[in-house]
Each structure stands twice: as C-alpha cells, then as structure tokens.
C-alpha cells in the first residue's frame, strides 16, 4: 500500500503518510463521501457568508407582496392575500402575524421593535414584486434569502453548540478516564445526574430560564449534549492510558499533561471528528424543534426551525413554498453530513489499513 491512487507505483519515491493523510486518501476513494464533503463545504461557505451578512443579509427586506408565489409556479399558484392587508408604512402596526399569535407576552416588546426595525428597511422600498424565485412569506420577504440566512443560523448553532459540547465532554472525559479514582467518581456522578434527566426536558428547562436568542441556544445545547462525548472520551482514555505507547511515554518521563494531550488526544481525534459531525447534525435538528416550540432564536433572527414554525398555518392556506424550501435545504444538509460521517468513520478507522 505504498503507491497512491494518482502516482503510478514505482514511479515516485515512497512518500510517508500520516494516519490523517491515509484517511484523506481513503475518503477520496469513497465517491459518496467525497461528494458529501463538497456539499457540506458549500453549506459551510453559505453559513460563513450568512454570518458576515454577505449571503442572505437582506432577508428582512419586504421586497414582494405577502405570499408572493415562486416565479416558476405563476401568480395563480395560491389565493394571494390583498397587498394592502399589511400596512407598509406602519410604525404602529399591530403585528397581524398569524404564526406568532401563540407567543406569550414577554416577547411582545421585542416584536414591536422588530416591526419598527423592519419598517426602517422598508422606507426605501419602491415597488413590491408579484413573484419571487422561491416565493415570499407573510410579510413579503424573499423565501430564498430567508432560507439562506436561516440555514446559516442553523449551521452556526449546530457547529458552535457541537464545539462547545465537545470541549466540555472531552475535557471532563479525559480527566475522568485518565486519572480515575476520586475525580472520576465525582465527574461520573455529574454525568449520571445529567443523563438521569431526559435531554428534551433539560433543553426546555434550560431554554425556559435563560431567555431566547442564538447564544442561549448554543449554550443550552452544549450544556445538555456533552454527556455522549464524555462517555466516549472517558472510555477511550481508560483504554488508551494502559496502551503500551502511553506507558512507554510515561517510562521516558513524559508528564501527565503531555501523555493526555500529546500522546492520547491525537489518537482519538478521528473519533472526535465523527462525534462532532454527528452532534452537529443532531443539534441542527434540535434547534428546529426548539425554535418550533418557541424556545429558539429571537424574533429578529431566522433559523430553519423558526421558518418551519410558520409552516402549519401557511400550509392550511395553501402557501407551501416556505416549507418546501426549508425541507430541501435541511434535508440536503443533513443527508450530506450523515453520509460524510459514514465515510469519515470508514476512512479514519485505524483497523482498516
């Protein structure tokens, strides 16, 4: 196995490959995995673009008539609400948003502020469009822009939540598994407390006490989903600390922290990468449910979940495009991510060589 795919065997001098390089080579051989990697990369770019408002930055602009249908459907696609049903210049508009009617008082203030804010954007608006590439929502915002921005938010929530959870889980798991004894007892107790309460209940409780917003969601998700990583990392450290190369490191005089982070950690990095991808997918899905239940992103933010929250009432009226857009965006993202996880798992498995 010295020859790579591209170089003909015997031609090039054998180049040494680290385990990562070998894994990368195997990943490239896996077509499905490699395509997934590209799809995920595109999504990550969108997420990055969304973060810096390069992509989907104008999603708040109400550029079309309410529920303007997708241009490829035609105006007859649905019974469009009269355009004047919504007061365009309304500073004191009474928020006739059907989907938000169920919201409780505490966010009322934010809501009106959002209206004001949105109003400011609209002043420059001249003519409302009758149709948009992927239609418009209740307030005439471009569904495409909204989906891009929402995807970006969801990915960021997923990634940052996963990074944070991974950080907590890995640190605690490493300490617990490596040192054992009293500190392990304490951390395992901590772990069993968190796992004794169902995730969803914990998520909701955390979300309920700490208000809304992207930061909150990320914190909440990290605090509830570190347990899986903890268990994994603890078990790995328990196993690897008695591996001969770690014992050898101890014998040559490497300190505890050197053994923990220089010797053991790189050897579970492939597992952490898989765990990270898995968790990102899970958190993107969780975010959708949280936002849907009203514990998600703030009113002036949009995520795939908050868009889905608008879907039921739209659907009943026959406006299906927002839901379709979200479903497509999310399904492709999650499918690609899941296939990538599978491919990574195969490619980085040290057993196959």
């Amino acid at each position: 196995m010295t020859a790579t795919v591209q170089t003909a065997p015997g031609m090039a001098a054998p180049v040494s490959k680290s385990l990562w390089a070998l894994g990368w080579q195997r990943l490239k051989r896996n077509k499905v995995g490699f395509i997934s990697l590209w799809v995920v990369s595109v999504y990550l770019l969108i997420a990055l673009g969304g973060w810096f408002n390069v992509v989907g930055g104008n999603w708040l602009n109400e550029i079309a008539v309410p529920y303007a249908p997708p241009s490829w459907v035609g105006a007859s696609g649905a019974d469009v609400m009269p355009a004047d049903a919504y007061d365009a210049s309304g500073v004191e508009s009474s928020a006739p948003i059907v989907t938000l009617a169920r919201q409780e008082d505490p966010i009322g203030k934010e809501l009106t502020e959002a209206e004001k804010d949105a109003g400011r954007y609209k002043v420059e608006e001249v003519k409302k469009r009758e149709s948009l590439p992927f239609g418009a929502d209740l307030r005439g915002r471009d569904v495409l822009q909204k989906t891009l921005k929402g995807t970006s938010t969801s990915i960021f929530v997923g990634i940052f939540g996963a990074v944070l959870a991974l950080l907590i889980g890995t640190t605690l798991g490493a300490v617990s598994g490596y040192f054992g004894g009293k500190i392990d007892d304490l951390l395992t107790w901590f772990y069993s407390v968190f796992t004794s309460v169902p995730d969803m209940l914990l998520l909701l409780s955390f979300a309920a006490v700490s208000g809304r917003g992207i930061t909150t969601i990320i914190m909440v998700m990290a605090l509830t989903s570190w347990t899986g990583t903890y268990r994994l990392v603890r078990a790995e450290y328990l196993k690897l600390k008695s591996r001969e190369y770690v014992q050898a490191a101890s014998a040559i005089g490497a300190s505890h922290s050197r053994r923990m982070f220089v010797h053991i950690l790189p050897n579970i990095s492939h597992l952490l990468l898989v765990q990270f991808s898995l968790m990102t997918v899970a958190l993107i899905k969780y975010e959708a449910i949280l936002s849907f239940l009203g514990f998600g992103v703030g009113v002036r933010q949009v995520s795939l979940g908050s868009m889905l929250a608008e879907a039921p009432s739209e659907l009943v009226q026959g406006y299906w495009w927002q839901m379709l857009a979200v479903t497509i965006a999310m399904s492709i993202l999650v499918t690609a991510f899941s296939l990538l996880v599978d491919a990574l798992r195969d490619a980085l498995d040290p057993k196959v060589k």
Partner: protein
Amino acid sequence: MTQDNLLSIRNLKVNFRLESGERFEALKGISFDIPKHRTVALVGESGSGKSVTSMAIMQLLPSNNTEVDPASEILFNGKNLLTLTGSELRAMRGKDVAMIFQEPMSSLNPVFTVGDQIAETLMLHAGLGRSAAKKRVVELLTEVGLPDPAKKAGAYPHQLSGGQQQRVMIAMAIACEPKLLIADEPTTALDVTIQKQILELIAKLQKKHGMSVLFITHDLGVVGEFADDVVVMRHGVIRETGTVKQIFDAPKDAYTKALLNCRPHLDRRPMRLAVIDDFLREGGYVEPAERQRGYLPDDEIILDVQGLGKSFESREGLFGKHVFHAVKDVSFKLARGKTLGIVGESGSGKTTVGLTLVRLHEATAGKALFHGKDILSMSPREFQDYKRRIQIIFQNPYASLNPRFTVGQILTEPMMLHDIGTNQHERLQMARELLERVGLPENAMFKYPHEFSGGQRQRIAIARCLTMKPELLICDESVSALDVSVQAQVLNLLQDLQDEYQLSYLFISHDLAVVKHISDQVMVMNKGEVVEQADADDIYLRPKQDYTRRLLSSIPQGWVNEAIVAA
C-alpha cells in the same frame, strides 16, 4: 510417499484484492498432499500463506475480496472442493473436514454452553436427537480429557481456562469423526505446559481415529515430535517438502536451514544466533563459538530488589474487598552488563515485576535499590531522573509506538524531555546515528510506525530507549510477538548493545529457550512467587524444583530422534 492421498492441493493460487485496488498474491500456486492417516505440518512465518491455505480448504476466506485462481484444485478423496455447491460444502465442513483455531476463547460462541455447541455439530451431521447428542457430548469431553465432563458440558466458554477451551474445540472438531483435522496454530495462545498437553492430545486422537491432520504452525520446534511430513512455506510459495526426518536431518533449502537454526537451542549457546541471511548468502553458515554465561563474584550489582510485592484490590460483596497478590516477596540482584531472565507462565507475575520497577505499577511491598537508592519509595519528582537510567521495551511492537508520531519525533521526544542534546538539530543527528546502530535506514526518520514491520518497530523501540543511554533495560516479552527469524535478529541486536554499552537486562519471557540463550542468571516464577533462581546453565541442567522440571520438559524438543540422542 506413494500412499493414498486424502487431500491433494494442486497449483493453488489465491489473491486478495486490497482496498487500494491492488492485488496481493497470498498463495502463488502451491501444491502438496496430505496422505491418509498421517500428520502433515505446514510451517511458515507470518505472511507465508499457511493460514490462507487452511482457510482455502475450508472455503472460509472472505468472498468479497478473495480471488481463487480457477485452475486451482483442492482434491479431497478425488473431488475438487473448489467446485462444490453450497450445500455440498456445508455437508463437508465439520463432518469430513474439521478445524480448530488459534484463539479458543473467541472461537467459541460466548452465549451458548460448550455442550450445546458440540451437540449442534452432532445433531447437524450425525443426525442425533437432543438427548443422544447430550450423551455423546459427555463421552467426547471425557475423551479430550476435560475434568468433570458432565458438569463442564453445561459451562459457558468464559468459565473454562484456555487449555480447557481448546479441548472443547477439539471435542467439537472430532465429534463427527472427520477424516481430516485442520489445526491452525492451536497452541500459540497457550502456556508451554498446556501446549504440550494439547499437542499430545491431538497426536493421541490422530492415532486412535486414524485421521489425517494438517497442523499449521510458525514453530518448527513443535513439529518434530509428532508430524510425519513437513511443508515449509515462505511468501506464498513452498520452499521444501519432506518427511520430518529429512527436514530435520538433511534440510536442502536454505530457508529451512535458517528456520532450524534461528531459534535458540537449549543445548548450545552461540555468540550470535543464526539469521536467514547467513544461509541465503554464499558460503553457508558456520556456527560461531559458544558464549559463556553466569554471574562472576566481582560483578558490580546495580539493582538489588528485596522482598518486592504487589497486590491488587477489588470489591467483593457489599463492603468486602478481595486482595489479589500478583507478586509476593520477590528478591534478586542484577549486575552491570549482565542479564537476569525471568521465566514463567501467564499469571506468574513476571510482567508485574518489570512494571513495578519502572513504577508503571506502584509496588505494595519491598525495596528496589538502584545504585543503593530505593527507587520504589522515591517521590515522582525524584524518580524522574531515574527514568532515564531504567528503560522498558514492551511485548507488542504494534502498540508500543505512538501511531501519530513519526520515527523522528518518537526518538527525539525522550531527549527533549531529559535535556539531552543542546538543540533539535543535534538531537536529530543523534537519532539518525541510533537508527543506523539498530539497523534501520536514515529515511526512516520521516516515516510513521505503521510503515514498519514488527521487527523494525521493535528496533525503533530499542532505539528510543538508547537515546537516554540507560543502564538498565527491562525487556518485557520483547521478542515474543516476532517471527523466529526476526526474533533472532533482535536478540542479536540486544546482545551486541549489551556488549557495547555494558547494559544490564531484565529479560522477561515465557519462552525458556530464549531466556536460556540471553540470560546469565534465570529466575523461575509461578503464581507470583519465585520458584527457583540460579545461573542459566545450572537451572537448565540441574533444576531443583518440580515446577522448573515440568516447564523444561514441556519445551518442544525439535525432532524426537534428536531429543533421544541428546538425552
């Protein structure tokens, strides 16, 4: 060799498709016969294709990446096994041809009783009913010498010892009176005394049932005592075929000769062990002079261990504790430039002794005076300086190097930790010199451990220890996982290094021949206690304890006739 052949392999070619798309030729067209009622030993080192051959006979090779050349034939009683249909094949497996494997523990299904697993074969092939099969199971277990067979039939595999598990596997294999028994390294995972019992059992059953046996092993030593014919394989080709007498008395092939001489012998101790290259190059091999071993009165003692003990505690019952004494009251002295060998079977505590001396386990009793200072009672900080002077090499060359470090990083890390060398450049230079010293090319510096073979990795591990210029090297089964030819090379290297740097070795092994070869003094351990301790030659020629005698008599003696002559 004109008797009836039970099995004839003709031009067997097997390729494996690798993930990268390349093909690996595991068997390059081999041919040999297994005559009726005879035992054929298939001998080879790792990668020789010996196990692939046995799997090919049973057709147990993974179908998704194996290609068997269509022109190949495996004739069993004249019928080509390679062209059998699925049901014909199943009727053959377990009935005409049965097989036992290397790891009895994992080869038995953990959730069924051993009785059920044997009965399954009987019900399948002999058409016995459940109760008849049960009765037969007890008979079979009695035949393979399992104590209390009626009760043991209801036991689960994990409740039996390794030797007992292998007896169960044998009972399962002979249940339907197979004509051919394939034994794939059946004793490799077992202790030497158990190995002897299992070998004797297979030999006895072979005679009694008139079976043919295909015995696959890496150890030419075990072959001599009971095989009729020997087939020597290397790299997927057969090097030599002959009767046991021919192979042992007048080997023709250089590789066979090398195999016979690479392994340390109990009755002689050359300055250097023979290695394969000695035989493959022109001029042949000339046996070097004998090496004298043993402690001398004016030897400088560098390590004096007194009453070393190590116990482990585990929980039992509600508040109870169970204390297990892994090592009890072990004392020995080790001189500069000399080797103390510690031999024992699994569970003897020999490895624990080594680990407590580098403080990978904390000893629970006793002292270990290294140059007069007790290294066991030192604070970790104080001991840090001693880590440089006492080093350890582990058994498994695949697990003892960090897979994510390059060889360069592996070698410079200890120097960096102990401030050896003034800068990285100097350290790299020293690392390169050491690599050369242990016989590896310079470009190995930038490679990762997975690119090396087992023997090469062990050399890297040795080089890592040498970076710190230690005085005492603990070799914990350091050559046990290596092929015999590689083992000889590494033993020679260790010997050269001792001669050159006056290193002291604590050489821990289950292999008595290897220990005899390399040690000045030998300590025999059993169940955590020292059985006997004496100069190497003394202990082998004049063992004082029963246990030592039993161990020595279990060592495979090579060919029987030779053993008689020696005795």
